Every structure is written in C-alpha cells, then in structure tokens.
C-alpha cells in the first residue's frame, strides 16, 4: 500500500499533473506528521500506517500550501468525505486537486475526478462505531443535570486555543463568528460560559457537515471529548433521515414538505 502511494505520488509529480503531494511522513519520536512532497525523488518519505490519522483536507485552503501549486492529497475515507463535502460547499471544484485514495481495507484508489470521489464515499454510510455508540449511550443514560455537569466540567478545562477549529477541514471560514466583535455573537473569553457557547455553536455549525474524522478530539490539548457532540448529531441524522442521507441538514429543496423551511 505504502509503495503504491509512493509510486502514484512519483508519477503525479514527474508527469507534472501536480506540484505537491500532501501525505504523511515520520515525525518526532513515534509520531507522524503531514509532509508536502514537491520532488518525485522525495516521494519515498511518504508513509501510511495506523498512526496516520490527521485529516489532511485541512491543508487544502491554506494560503501557503496553495502557493505551491496544484496538490495531490493522500486520502483515507474521512478525508474523501471531507473532499466530497468541500466540493458540495463549493470550496473545491473539479481540477483543483488530485486524490490518492485509500480504502478502509487498504487498497490504493485512483479517482479520475472529484465526482468519482463523491460517488465512492456515498456508498459508505457514515455510521458510528460500536465504541462511539457506547460512549453516546453512556452520556444519554445520565440525567439532564448529570449531563450538564459532565459538560460543564469538561468545558472548564477549555483554554480556547481553537485547536478544534484549526484542525477541522470544515472550519474553513476566513472569519469565524467567534472572531467577530461588532456585534459580538458569542462570548470570547475562556470562562465556563464562553467555552460552552463556543463548543455548542461549533457543533451546530458542523451539523450535517462533520465527517467524524475525530481530529478535534485528537487536537485538543486538554482532551475534551468534543467528537461526542458531533457524533450525537450524526446519530440523530441517521435516525431521522437514514444512513445514506448526505447533506441532510444543508440541502434546500423548493418542494420540501415542511412549511417552516420555505
């Protein structure tokens, strides 16, 4: 698998199809990190193993990455989903990027265009793992007051470093609501109310858009289980609209049967 990724990267770079390949490489200690390969001979630095979890789609809108020219991106399923969503939200269009896909069973996938990325991931329902479902059940079994206290305690650790936002490919707004101060929509300081408001707002903004890659939770320096909020919303969407409902909360249909939406 790793060899195939390197081979594909070399071909794309040598043939001039892309200027840079965004993938994973060895980092410090036993960590891995995103690397940006610009020469075919450097493609052997690319790796792919169980440690490679970061959602690399986060780099697609980044100014200095764009300045390198057209990228190819090593994309596991959550990254493919992010690409699908970014295309839907008109943040990416055909021809912007090349995709070196990796399926859940470790096959390296060729995608001729971004439509085929969407077609591929549409067939894989966005469902929660048994562990994720169990964590949600535990939370749902709490009384309202217990759950409120659980979140208050978790949020009391928040330092508002915005690693959750920065690590999220769906948080691509150039100016986030929390950075607006005229008017100030939500409380900025990292006190209990400010942190709670921030995370509730962020979860709601990601409703129907979150691909459950888990980067917000992994990025959090104080280990707040933020993905639980998004996973609960994903569970609600599955319950209400079915497993294959894409863009369930983002699509507007003129013939929608609900009156309030018109």
């Amino acid at each position, binding site marked *: 698998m790793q060899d195939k990724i390197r081979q594909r990267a070399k071909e794309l770079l040598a043939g001039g199809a892309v200027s840079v390949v965004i993938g994973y490489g060895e*980092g*410090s200690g036993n960590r891995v990190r995103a690397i*940006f390969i610009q020469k075919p001979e450097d493609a052997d630095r690319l790796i792919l193993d169980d440690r490679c979890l970061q959602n690399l789609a986060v780099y697609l809108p980044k100014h200095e990455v764009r300045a390198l020219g057209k990228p190819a991106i090593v994309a596991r399923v959550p990254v493919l989903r992010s690409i699908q969503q970014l295309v839907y939200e008109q943040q990416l269009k055909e021809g912007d990027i090349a995709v070196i896909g990796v399926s859940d069973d470790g096959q390296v996938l060729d995608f001729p265009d971004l439509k085929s990325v969407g077609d591929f991931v549409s067939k894989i329902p966005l469902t929660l793992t048994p562990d994720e479902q169990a964590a949600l059940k535990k939370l749902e079994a709490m009384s309202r007051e217990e759950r409120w206290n659980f979140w208050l305690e978790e949020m009391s650790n928040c330092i508002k*470093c915005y690693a959750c936002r*920065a*690590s999220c490919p769906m948080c691509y707004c150039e100016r986030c609501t929390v950075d607006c101060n005229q008017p100030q929509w939500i409380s900025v300081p990292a006190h209990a109310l400010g942190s709670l408001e921030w995370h509730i707002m962020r979860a709601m903004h990601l409703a129907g858009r979150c691909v459950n890659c888990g980067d917000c939770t992994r990025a959090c320096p104080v280990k707040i289980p933020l993905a639980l909020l998004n996973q609960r919303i994903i569970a609600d969407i599955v319950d209400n609209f079915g497993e294959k409902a894409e863009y369930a909360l983002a699509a507007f249909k003129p013939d929608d049967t609900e009156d309030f939406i018109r």
Partner: protein
Amino acid sequence: MADKKIIRKSSLGELFKKIRSDGKRILAPVDRGGKILFEYVDSPGSIAPDYIQTTLSAKDTLLPRCEEMLRFRTEQKSVYLEESLNRPEPTLIFGVRPCDARSIAVLNAVYLINYTDDIYRQKIDTTTIVGVSCAKCDEYCFCTSVGGSPGDTAGSDMLLTQMDNDIYLAEILTDKGKAIAALAPELFAEGGDVDKNKHCADVPVRFDVKDLSKRLPGVFEDPVWIAQSLRCIGCGTCSYVCPACTCFDIQDETDGNRGVRLRCWDSCGFAQFTLHTSGHNPREVQSQRWRQRIMHKFSYQPDQLDVIGCVGCGRCSRTCPVDMNILQHITDILEVH
C-alpha cells in the same frame, strides 16, 4: 546561600495543614484521566504520583486564561469605573517544575519592568512557589539548552528534590520560602548538605542559545520558516500551554449598562493576532506568525528584556496537534547558512 534542610515525604501532610491554616490555598498537580492539572488540594494524597510535566503550566494562576481588569457602568453618555472583584487569594503552588518556575522571570520582565501591571504584581506578591526537581525527563525537554536545569532553583521560593522514597532535600530560597518553613520548623531537619544532582534527570544540552539569538536576525528572510510551518494549522495551543507566553487580548463583556473588561490569552499563531483595523496584516501568512514565535522568544526578548522567552519545558512540542517540534526546528534553523 540557600538554607538546605531535609523534610520527610510523610511530613508533607502536616505541612499542608499548616499552610492551609495560615490562610493559603494550595494548588498542586492532580491526575484527571491522563491530564495533569493544577487543582486545589488539601492534602498531598491528591497529588499525581508520577508525571514529567503538567498539561498546562502554573501560568494559569499568575496570568489566568481570562481575568477581570476592571468593572464599569454607563449612564447616559458617561462611563463610571466600579470596584474590581479581582482580588488575589494567598496561594501556594506546589510541585512546580524548575522550568516553569524559571518562566516567572519572563512573566516578570513583561509585566513588571517598564510598566508595573498591578493585577499581576498583586498575584505574584501573594503567591509562593514550591518547586519539585525533575527526576525524569523526556525527548521534548531541553531546559539545559536555555539556561535552566532539572534542579534549577530560579523562580522557586522553596525547591524540593526527592532523595529517596521518603526524603526530600528542601532548599529554602527566599523570604516566602522561609515563611513556609517557619510554619512548621519541626518538620525541617538538618542534613541537607547533599549532592542533589545525582537525583535529578540528565537533560543533555541540545543547542547554543546565544548562538541562536545572534543568528536569528540574519535568517529573517530565509525560506526555512515556510518549510517548517507548512503543516502548522494556526491554532494557539503552543502559546497557551507555554509557561512563558505573555500576549493578551482585551474583551469587554456587558450586561445592560454594566460591564467587565477582561484580559484573555492571545496567540501569535492566530490569523487575527496582528490584523489591523485597516484590514492590513503585517503577518499575513502562517510562516510569518511562526517566525514571530521563534524570533520573539530567542531574539527580541533577549535583546530587549535580557531574558530568553523559552524555558525548554517542551510542552508546545508534546501538545502540538501537528507535531511542530520546537527543538527540531531550532536545530534546523541553526543549520541555515
């Protein structure tokens, strides 16, 4: 010259009681599901038994993530100041690592030299630091490269070094340290004339910080900053876990005609950090922000305040979601010709 005594680990409970009766709250590292956080404790039993470094530094006490600067009310077109409710409580922070204790010199340089920040001064005046030397380190630690050491006394009022399971060497370093020892002199015994270094971690010197400071202005325009920071996602984690980062933002929160002005941590990693109201941003892209972080700590602060803005605690590297490793990056910068 520090007064050196020994104190038994089993006596700390008694000492904590005396400190509490003296009216001080005690903050100490507590294990919260893998996070090591400074929390209020009454007894040493609650303290995390084994950790290299706390998740957040003790900075949160001296320079909280957000704190009240003043209160105000408006009446028609006038604004009136009201009494601030931000009053420091006498606090003892126990278990501060020597690198973190050393960072107080950086906070002092920013908040006490040139301009005395009263809110900070009151906090520093009422806070006692009891450091605990490091017996262990990891690959991210580099205190010895920036002037510190695992048994460094700088910034601590009292420094404890564990000699064996039940014995600490207690170095009583300042008047505040003496005041703590004076609460229970019977717990501090003679016998402190020992070599603590063999009980401290061995942190190798990884680079020459003077050389770095000298060379940084010359590499300001080097492409190394872009290469290093391509993977930086622009969050503020490095600054917020840093014991020596001091930048802040000011926010007003109002409710009707009353309001509070708060000082909140800010980070040079954020795109808005230096955004002007005109729309111009002198640090438009992430590589310029990353460069600012390194320049500020290793060039501007040594030049202007005679202090290195980094204590080598390694938190930024340990915590960075995308593995920005400051030690590796500094080493690479030193190789730029």
